[in-house]
């Protein structure tokens, strides 16, 4: 399993400046805790599912009742433009940030908006190469974008197995997908699909009368509601969460490969609550937080101690596409323009 993940993560390391020195990792010391408590609060921007974000904040607040977590949850792209807007106006509201679009961290790091903050636990336990060696970001979570179908409406035998299967006329008017302009997950997935399956596939998919929604959390819910029996992309974690609630949905890991989306976290250089931010940042990589993200959030984790809940296909058995945030960051305009041309929105 480790090797596959490492392959998937290779680009992250390549994206970083290979020559630079290893950043010193920090530990959660009593001094840090005391300083964080003095600050008393932190502002956490995240694109993770709202309920998961709230649960994480609550778990942290249970551990540190003196520190209040202000959660600001937005879709990754809206979060990105919000931070951009705020920073261009010199408003340093956000202390620590988590995004489902790793490319954003490339941009922020280049702009100098991030502070190096490598929790000791990440350095010690997380696979080398999964985190920025300079410590500007680390993979707080990962997820995939999957195909899924409504098990009441589509017999398992007839369900699509690959992306190319979606071009079958029988799925015409029966699919839903999210939008790369609004969702970082889908932007990343679109890039990987375009690269590994081909842009011609996306062009043909656009001809299948696909219902377009914004957030990557929406397609699974449209599938469950029966609005469309199949989703062409969308978050795997929502599928897990809905399955747990007994919703009639099943994920498909396409034969061409499944887009892998890493959701890093980082601490802002201009954080107004730097100690609380670093404390929360470190805590969010702990086994407690990671297990919570996996159990409650349906996430994938790089923490070796995390136990996958039963019934979820382990990552080691999935053919993953390679995440390449550097390329995504470079090609974002082009991806969106192409997408707009094909899908008209």
């Amino acid at each position, binding site marked *: 399993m480790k090797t596959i993940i490492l392959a998937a993560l290779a680009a992250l390391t390549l994206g970083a400046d290979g020559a630079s020195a290893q950043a010193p990792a920090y530990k959660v010391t009593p001094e840090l805790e005391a300083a964080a408590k003095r600050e008393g609060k932190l502002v956490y921007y995240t694109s993770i599912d709202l309920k998961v974000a709230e649960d994480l904040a609550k778990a942290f607040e249970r551990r540190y009742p003196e520190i209040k977590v202000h959660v600001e949850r937005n879709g990754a792209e809206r979060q990105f433009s919000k931070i951009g807007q705020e920073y261009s*106006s010199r408003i340093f509201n956000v202390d620590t940030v988590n995004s489902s679009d790793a490319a954003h961290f490339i941009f922020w790091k280049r702009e100098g908006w991030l502070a190096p903050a490598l929790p000791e636990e990440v350095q010690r336990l997380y696979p080398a190469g999964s985190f920025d060696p300079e410590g500007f970001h680390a993979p707080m979570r990962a997820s995939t974008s999957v195909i899924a179908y409504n098990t009441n409406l589509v017999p398992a035998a007839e369900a699509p197995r690959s992306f190319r299967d979606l071009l079958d006329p029988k799925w015409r008017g029966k699919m839903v997908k999210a939008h790369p302009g609004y969702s970082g997950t889908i932007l990343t997935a679109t890039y990987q699909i375009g690269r590994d399956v081909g842009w011609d596939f996306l062009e043909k998919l656009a001809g299948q009368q696909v219902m377009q929604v914004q957030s990557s959390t929406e397609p699974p819910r449209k599938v469950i509601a029966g609005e469309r029996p199949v989703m062409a992309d969308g978050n795997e974690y929502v599928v897990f969460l809905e399955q747990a609630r007994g919703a009639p949905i099943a994920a498909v890991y396409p034969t061409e490969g499944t887009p892998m989306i890493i959701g890093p976290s980082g601490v802002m250089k201009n954080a107004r609550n730097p100690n609380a931010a670093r404390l929360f940042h470190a805590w969010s990589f702990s086994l407690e937080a990671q297990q919570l993200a996996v159990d409650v959030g349906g996430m994938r984790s790089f923490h070796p101690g995390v136990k996958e809940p039963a019934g979820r296909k382990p990552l080691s058995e999935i053919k993953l596409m390679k995440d390449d945030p550097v390329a995504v960051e470079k090609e974002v305009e082009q991806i969106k323009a192409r997408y*707009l041309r094909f899908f008209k929105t």
Partner: protein
Amino acid sequence: MSTTGQGGVQRAGAGMDLSGPVLAASALFLAGLICLPIGWIAAFAFTDRAGAPTLGNFRLLLDDPTLFEPLMTTLGLSCSVAVFAALSATPLAWLVARTDMPGRRVARVLMTASFVTPPFLGAIAWEILAAPNSGVLNRLWRDLSGAEDALFDIYSFPGLVFVISCYTAPYVFVVLTNALDRIPADLEDAAGILGAPRWRIVVGITLPLALPALLAGTAVAFLQAMTLFGSPAILAIPAGFHTVTTKIYSLFQFPPKPQIAAAAALPLLLVTIALLWLQSRILGRRGYAVVGGKGAAPRLVRLGAWRWPVFVLVFAVLALPLFLPYMALLKAAISRLPAGPFDPANMTLAHFSFVFLEFSQTRHAFANTFVLALATATAGTLLALVVAYLVARRTDLSGRALEFLAMAPIAIPGVVLGVGLFLAYTRGPVVLYGTLWILFLAFLTIELPAAFQQLRASFRGLHPELEEASRILGAGRLETLWRITAPLLKSGVIAGWCLIFIGTVRELSAAVMLSSSTTKVLSVVIFDLNEGGNLGAIAVIGVAMLLLTFAVVGFANWITGAGGGPRPQPA
């Protein structure tokens, strides 16, 4: 009695006259409020990324079909909504105001209720109802008819027109019923004596007399449809097209292009100015002073055998903006799966406990929304009162300039105004971003025209001598405004206050740009929840929001209406 008897009567008004500074400050505040954000938008529309002056943004607007098509879509959308809203509201208004239809009071109240419903909430409810496959109505249709195809696809251009019309028709309805209420019966009787049959009187006399109101209401419906953001965001993107507002919004996604967004807003501004100009031209040509004049009270048309069929029809129409959507929302509020079957297995109170117990933003958002709405309504009514006073009592250029300023925000989509405000209040000297103040200013700006229009109309019906009589007896301008003018304009003042309050609660487009984690308002929370497909929570919040709004508006009308004594219309 003589001048010297009883020690005489003292002179009044010996204190400082603060009216000059206060009025000047209000005018100045208004100018700043409007000019600052608009100035920034204008500055961006005419500059390139480097800040150099250019017309390139506009050229791009015309050349790039992905920018030009939304413009055309929006124009088509606005025209369709205006026509649809006028056609549906006119017969309804006539039936409610001028006939003996049963339940017309209830129908009036219900139309107001649909006015209070935020359009984006209506759009979400109609998703539950009429999504082509999962929509409750379409399923019912399939079950009943055995058909394969959906009856109605809400994710389409007609679907969007329909949903927007549902929540803009009340504007036409309210303005029109007010006008119809005040058309004196003798004008209709005059035609009756000449031998005109009933229907000819309605078509030939009543409706033409109400035409200004109809035009005004329709213009508002047009502008609403043009600048609305929430409903298109929810329905147009799944349908595969953009309107100007969703396009502008998407232009702020990474990498943001505020210059083009600002340029894209300019055509809307021009259309608005043209529309308002046209309206004043049409209305200016004929004397419509009769509406609001004295005369016999309107007499109701007897519908006879048609009473009950008409009743059924009207309430069937009211089902569209009101009964059906709220039933859908109520069901979603207690269902595990919003579109699932209506049986105990599918029922849950989880959404309530999530919204009121678990979800940390709810309480904040409720508090923020209602604090903002109360503050904006109060400050906005005061400002509108002062500005309308200045405009009504000054016929010179400065009065007209103030009028233009107060009306200008009507032309600017909230999304764009949000950006203008962001630009204006995130850099010195006043940094308000991240506070409730910036939302307060945004809502104040956006909602001012409605209250101003309301109060300007009220002022026109108020004889200036009523104020002068107070002045000469010793009351200063402000005291007169407070003791005479405001009480006389009471109904207008309350209406203005309620308009702002409701408008603030349902405002989404600017709020979505300006709110942050601690200053979230309900509309933004609902919009966020919708992104995550969290319909149950939306339904719970939406219904609670409606109930609270009704409570506040009802309370406002109750406390101000509680004073005794008849309040005849000023002569």
